[in-house]
């Protein structure tokens, strides 16, 4: 009865953590990164059965793509399923495929938005506040903070996935988790609203003569809605992308154009 040791699992996790995107291409993305991660598992489980060994390698070389740090839970689940299969349980290729395809989407959604949309920007903005005048402490804090949080998360999820096996699928894609993802979604929207306020900066240079005094328009705006122009810029960009389906690069060009024209006209 082949059994996976802690060491096998660690090796498999490390292979995933390092090599998940190392041969990324448009058509296969993390396919071979996933296979790479399965090598220690397959070596242990099928070392005496070259055909199964070969088939297992092939089985895990298909298209795969998920947020890598959160997605390690799939590798853990797959490892536990391979172990069961090697021990006689009837798990055919279809099941492996469906486990991966059903979890990739939700995990990428929550992973990308939570990690790239909340965790990283929030950590960065703390670090930037500390380091704004050149102090390295903030930067070091970010480095240590992010690596330990994300590294631990990735490891923890792999091991958790292995422990729970296929049963954890429901926790990931079930109704309960959907509610949780919706809540995280709202958390994300609130936080990026704040990011917009913190980082998008636009102010007008328009001054309106008013009798002897001049009215500085930006001051007037600030008196009832600071950051209003920034908010408009963000919503305008979102409108171009989400409603007009304009590509990010084109929006970049539009923003450049606005900066140039706005300054030329004396608006900004």
């Amino acid at each position, binding site marked *: 009865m082949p059994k996976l040791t802690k060491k096998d699992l660690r090796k498999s996790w490390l292979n995933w953590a390092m090599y998940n995107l190392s041969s990324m291409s448009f058509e296969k993305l993390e396919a071979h990164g996933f296979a790479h991660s399965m090598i220690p598992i397959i070596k242990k489980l099928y070392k005496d059965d070259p055909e199964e060994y070969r088939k297992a390698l092939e089985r895990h070389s298909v298209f795969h793509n998920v947020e890598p740090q959160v997605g390690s839970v799939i590798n853990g689940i797959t490892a536990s399923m391979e172990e069961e299969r090697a021990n006689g349980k009837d798990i055919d290729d279809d099941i492996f495929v469906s486990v991966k395809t059903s979890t990739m989407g939700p995990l990428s959604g929550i992973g990308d938005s939570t990690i790239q949309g909340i965790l990283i920007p929030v950590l960065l903005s703390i670090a930037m506040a500390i380091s704004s005048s050149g102090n390295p402490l903030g930067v070091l804090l970010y480095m240590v903070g992010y690596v330990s949080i994300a590294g631990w998360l990735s490891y923890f999820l792999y091991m958790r996935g292995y422990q729970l096996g296929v049963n954890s699928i429901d926790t990931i894609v079930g109704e309960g988790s959907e509610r949780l993802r919706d809540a995280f979604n709202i958390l994300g929207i609130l936080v990026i609203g704040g990011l917009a*306020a913190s980082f998008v900066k636009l102010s007008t240079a328009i001054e309106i003569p008013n009798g002897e005094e001049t009215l500085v328009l930006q001051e007037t705006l600030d008196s009832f809605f600071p950051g209003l122009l920034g908010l408009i810029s963000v919503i305008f960009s979102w409108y171009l992308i989400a409603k007009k389906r304009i590509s990010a690069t084109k929006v970049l060009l539009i923003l450049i154009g606005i900066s140039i024209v706005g300054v030329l006209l004396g608006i900004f």
Partner: protein
Amino acid sequence: MDIILMIQALAIGIFCYLGSVSSPWLLGVTGGYYTIGRPLVAGLIIGIILGDVTTGIILGVAVQAAFIATISTGGTQNQEITYAAYGGIALGILAEASTGVTVTLSVGIGVLGLFLHNLMMVLNSGWNRRAENAAKKGDAQGIARNNGIYPQIVNFLLRVIPIGLAVYLGEGFVKAFLDFVPDKVTHMMDVLGGLLPALGIALLMNLLIREKSHFIFFVTGFAFIVFISNNMIALTIFSLLIAYVIYLVASNSTPSPISDDDEVI
């Protein structure tokens, strides 16, 4: 003199490689793309390499602000942040550029970098085919090499050479350019630096906002920072509270599929 700059340029190129999204050496994206690859961290590293940590960090903060919300999903990126960070900040320090100019440099280099990144992804298809064959033959070593090692040679070259050259040769160009540039243009660059985060945030919104009512949350987050407390931790805590309440609301309603009752009865 030349030699020192050459070594510095090389070192910067190497870090640009280590921070790339597909570089495995620092625990994959965890220590690489999401740590070494961030402009803030790049600022510190370049500062150490070029011997001016303070300026490095200050420029790093500026470029990071413009790229605060870059996002990479499904292999696509809106800007190649690592090229942007290492190329832009290094040239900014060397040419003694202002933060506005440095951000603009970064944006430009980021656009070019995106082409190179996409080129790498196209070239990786070749290594992928070799890895597939290895899998078919049951050759685990072949998979490991064609996934983890060989593609990195391409990635390494596509980063170290252009960034190294840019840093080594760019200082003069940039300085000469800056001498010509009128104040108006510098001001444009500052304006652009303030506008840029709007793009990344718009992409994040596109990812997260699924219905009109979600806008209430976005504007609330904005208003919190602008009117109440300019502190992201404070906002995160209150957002957690709100998200939790919404979660409670949702939990109380959905577990009871009452509309199906009729069928049950």
